């Protein structure tokens, strides 16, 4: 089933938690709602679930107006960051809860619970209590509990936020697989861009209560729509300068060809990613000379602080293998070019 919100707003004491958000999610899609904390993403999710009443706007579930329908009647599954499992109930009873309140027969309940235990790979754990499970297991139980009444929409609020890195990664893969198997319309909230890009086919980026960009992971990464997204998604350098002449900006020794419609002297900010800095030992073409001020090992890449003179610094990243083969060292002079960048007027 599809989710559609139109002009949805929620204010807390005058603070715009969510401000006139409109978006449509197609049946069977897997979408991430990405944003920093306080951007309103959880509030938006909770309004869709019926846990929060919007101050303005509409929510439509499968084309039906559901803005003021109670959570109970929306038939959505919700997964909380801290699991919110019923502490005093076993795994079995936790998963069965949504079926019991719908007055299903014991037989139906049992079949469904075991089907889900199998799906979350926790068969044999049905008699355990939540306190006897690891964090990852608890979250899987929470997902099973949410799926038990066969919801048409699955909403996850920072589902992996409380878990450590290794378990997060496993659960990401697992959620992807689960989505392929159940194909229930899924919307999950996260502040982790890596997670959003890996799991979702579509990302909504929220900032200050509004959706600033709606696109595929590649679009989000390569074509940031706003200042905020340019610096929020991925690592980035930014430099402030002004339009030198029609279609040209200059910053130190670097020259950027920019949109010719920008007026001369207009203040602009240019963003470029460290891995879009092309760095060589020998001068090739259109490069500027720079001195390696600092190197930093970051696992798969090595980051270099490049001093380009005049108190100006940029950071460049090179895959570890390439960097080691080139033998770049601190204090060495190299040649650098910026191969991709985005310009936003200030």
């Amino acid at each position, binding site marked *: 089933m599809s989710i559609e919100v139109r002009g949805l707003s929620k204010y807390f004491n005058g603070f715009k938690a969510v401000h006139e958000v409109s978006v449509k999610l197609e049946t069977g899609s897997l979408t991430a709602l990405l944003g920093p904390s306080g951007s309103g993403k959880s509030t938006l999710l909770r309004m869709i679930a019926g846990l929060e009443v919007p101050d303005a706007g509409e929510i439509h579930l499968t084309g039906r107006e559901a803005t003021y329908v*109670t*959570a109970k009647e929306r038939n959505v599954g919700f997964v909380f960051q*801290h699991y919110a499992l*019923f*502490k005093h109930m076993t795994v079995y009873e936790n998963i069965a*809860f949504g079926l019991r*309140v719908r007055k299903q027969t014991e037989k139906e309940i049992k079949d469904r619970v075991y089907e889900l235990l199998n799906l979350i790979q926790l068969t044999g754990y049905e008699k355990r209590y939540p306190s006897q499970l*690891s964090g990852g*297991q608890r979250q899987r139980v929470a997902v099973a509990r949410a799926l038990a009444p066969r919801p048409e929409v699955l909403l996850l609020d920072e589902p992996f936020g409380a878990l450590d890195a290794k378990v997060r990664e496993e659960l990401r893969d697992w959620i992807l697989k689960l989505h392929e198997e159940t194909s229930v319309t899924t919307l999950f909230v996260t502040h982790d861009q890596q997670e959003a890009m890996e799991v979702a086919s579509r990302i909504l980026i929220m900032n200050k209560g509004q959706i600033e960009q709606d696109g595929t992971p590649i679009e989000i990464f390569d074509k940031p729509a706003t200042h905020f997204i340019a610096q929020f998604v991925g690592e980035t350098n930014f430099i402030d300068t002004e339009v030198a002449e029609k279609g040209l900006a200059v910053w130190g020794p670097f020259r950027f060809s920019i949109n010719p419609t920008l007026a001369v002297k207009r203040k602009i900010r240019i963003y470029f990613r460290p891995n879009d800095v092309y760095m060589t030992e020998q001068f090739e073409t259109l490069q500027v000379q720079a001195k390696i001020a600092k190197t930093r090992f970051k696992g798969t890449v090595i980051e270099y602080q490049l001093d380009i003179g005049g108190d100006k610094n940029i950071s460049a990243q090179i895959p570890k293998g390439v960097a080691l083969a080139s033998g770049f060292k601190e204090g060495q002079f190299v040649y650098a070019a910026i191969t991709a960048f985005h310009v936003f007027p200030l």
Partner: protein
Amino acid sequence: MKETLIVSFRGTRNNDPARALTEPLWVRWVLIAIALSFMGLFLVVPLVEVFASALDKGFQYYFNAIREPAALSAIKLTLIAAGVSVLLNTLFGLSAAWAITKFQFPGKNLLITLIDLPFTVSPVVSGLIYVLLFGLQGLMGHWLKDHDIQIIFALPGIVLATVFVTFPFVARELIPLMQEQGSEEEEAAKVLGANGWQTFWKVTLPNIQWGLLYGIILCNARAMGEFGAVSVVSGHIRGLTNTLPLHVEILYNEYNFTAAFAVASLLTFLALLTLVAKTLVGAKYSRERGVLTTSLENEVTP
């Protein structure tokens, strides 16, 4: 004693952090002696004295003192007053705690403050409030008299005074507990399709059951032992408006010491019973709270 020996053994080691805090042996013994003699003087001796005096004239006399109609009526009245108070205050405590922890509303802080009022007001004043309200000279006295309703110097007055004095217990116990638990589980139940009633019985109540029971035990103990407020509104009509503590006082004032202590021993029994129940429930309760707080941070790996 075992404890102190272990501590002193540890104290001999270097780089033991406990060492800095360990006093010389004689200081420890003096402190323990002071604590124990205080306990003995103010708790154990009176306790023994109650039972010794109660049985002063033998078991036969003891049982007769308890079985006498005035005593039985006092027991009955105490049980009614305590029963009603526990029932009403459980309902009040649950709804107050629910309202305070799950909703935002104007006057919330005022409500939290007012819940403590009976703790800060002298019980005599609590009793007087009802006399001033419902007594003949009181605000509603004439109206009540015209309608032939007796509140002061009768059962309703005693119940009202007891309810007033004991109403913070359940609420005070539940508010911090429910605040700590938050409302995520209730939200989960709601999204899963449970109605308010189902959510309360299946999710909220099991989570607070031990705290609730703890509050009820404390409330009950206070209700049964309340003297001051009840004394003001009771009128001391023997066999009619005397609760157990008031009955003890009357017997004592009549120099019937043995009977007074016999009835007092009932209250003492009750106190000991409460203590045991409180300890058992308290242990269970703190374990649950322990699980609650650790389950968020500690990931138990299988």
